[in-house]
């Protein structure tokens, strides 16, 4: 029942963000444009701008939600989020480097490559050791390094415009999202989410501790490798198209845990659905709050909303 409500609410949020935008278009015209009828202008606005943007919000949110839930399950720590593996910071570094060299059209590609590099770095650092402690250590280290190098790149930015472009990019936005971004993001995110959902039953057994899980047939090393790959796919493709979107991966699983289930396996796909809805709503708010000339950035809004919600949940639960 609650699950059905969540799915419905998320679908509604995504639909709503197709119907709402800067240009006032009547709902009937929006529907018409979606079905390929109506004026050319409406067609462009709805099919080329709003639809990809809404779907991107849903995809990125779903990837971040699933990543957060899977990481919290694997580390058995509700404070984990996609950030602790450092892939977001690595993806951002790749994008920032592309911007530094003035190759803004290469940003998504550079972000993806950099996230993949981050994943390899974490795998390399972890080596044959297994378990949450070594994974978190490696991830936090890689993330911190990426953030430091990003700072260095900004430090040596060739001119103020490059610097401001980097700074704005780091705030996260879907305003420029188009069909090409969607094409890049959709497959990778879907694959990542599928890998994480696949791990669900193993994460459920791992609530008994890593040792006990191993005696129950869970291959911790394989689980860990799939987790790294799945999170890297979700976060990497998300950052590639949207920039840094904070706190969604951390607080969405809490929202689901609080309202529907604490089961680590169901939590993953439910967090994907909730993440899609939450980010679509957040992007809707961004559209509403951005006036002409002053754009509100999505990543700023998600952090601003996410932190208090997270703190509220944390206080209420303890």
């Amino acid at each position: 029942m609650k699950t059905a409500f969540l799915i419905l609410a998320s679908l509604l949020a995504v639909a709503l963000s197709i119907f709402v935008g800067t240009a006032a278009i009547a709902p009937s015209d929006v529907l018409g444009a979606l079905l390929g009828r109506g004026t050319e202008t409406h067609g462009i606005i709805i099919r080329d701008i709003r639809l990809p943007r809404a779907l991107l919000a849903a995809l990125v949110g779903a990837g971040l939600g699933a990543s957060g839930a899977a990481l919290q399950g694997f580390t058995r720590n509700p404070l984990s989020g996609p950030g602790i593996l450092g892939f977001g910071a690595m993806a951002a570094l790749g994008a920032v480097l592309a911007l530094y060299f003035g190759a803004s059209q290469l940003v998504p590609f550079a972000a993806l490559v950099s996230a993949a590099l981050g994943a390899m770095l974490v795998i390399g650092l972890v080596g044959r050791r297994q378990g949450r402690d070594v994974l978190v250590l490696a991830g936090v280290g890689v993330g911190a390094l990426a953030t430091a190098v990003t700072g260095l790149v900004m430090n040596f930015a060739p001119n103020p415009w490059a610097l401001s472009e980097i700074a704005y990019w780091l705030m996260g936005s879907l305003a420029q999202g188009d069909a090409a971004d969607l094409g890049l993001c959709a497959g990778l995110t879907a694959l990542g989410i599928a890998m994480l959902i696949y791990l669900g039953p193993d994460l459920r057994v791992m609530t008994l501790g890593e040792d006990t899980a191993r005696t129950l047939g869970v291959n911790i090393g394989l689980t860990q490798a799939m987790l790294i790959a799945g999170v890297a796919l979700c976060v990497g493709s998300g950052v590639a198209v949207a920039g840094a979107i904070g706190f969604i991966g951390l607080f969405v699983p809490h929202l689901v845990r609080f309202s529907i289930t604490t089961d680590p396996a169901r939590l993953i796909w439910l967090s994907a659905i909730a993440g899609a809805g939450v980010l679509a709503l957040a992007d809707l708010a961004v559209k509403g709050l951005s006036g002409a000339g002053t754009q509100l950035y999505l990543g700023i809004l998600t952090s601003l909303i996410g932190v208090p919600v997270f703190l509220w949940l944390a206080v209420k639960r303890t």
Partner: protein
Amino acid sequence: MIRADKISATYGIRDVTLDFTRPQLVALVGPNGSGKTTLLRAIAGLLPVEGKLTVGTRIAYLAQKPEFQPTMSVRDVVELGRAPYRGRLGKLSKAGEEAVARAMLNTDVRGFADRPVGTLSGGQQARVALARALAVDASILLVDEPTANLDAAQALDVLERLKRESETALVIAAIHDLALAAHFADRVIVMDEGRVIADGSAEVLDGGVLAEVFGIMPPPGGWRVPERAAKRGV
């Protein structure tokens, strides 16, 4: 069922040779750091070992400090014991449901089957952990300090349950309480500094081994465990 031929593991056990051939209750005793936990973990396949170790059938392992997700219901925790036999989407098989029901019956946890584990007392949680291990339906049960953190009555209760299980399964339990070990075990293995010092019936706890390993003597009149009062409340 288990054959260990001169097995060693780093920082734990050295040249341990042991043979387990039939269902019985085996008590591993020895001071802290003597290698009991390492030996259990080695048999459970959790540690790399040197030497030849053959474990014939599926094992169930009960860690010294069982972990749970506090919000998970008792039944769900016990069902995790069936993980080795379940597909990713599969429901419990008929045999699985029977094993879970039997495990919950034998540990008296059915009364709070739907409660979150986190709301239970320490003694109740110990029974849930045992039920989870029993649900594996393995013919070898490895138990690390099952009575740690339990009061005297609860400890007695757990040992009685393990004793019952040992009629059909090989139960190897690391036990600190020498009285419980002497009273319940069919076979006692004394360990010290990673080696097996004595291996035999409970009588090994009566002799000089004790003085040598622990620096203590059995109490006058021998090891005794508390009696059950007429009205029991665990």
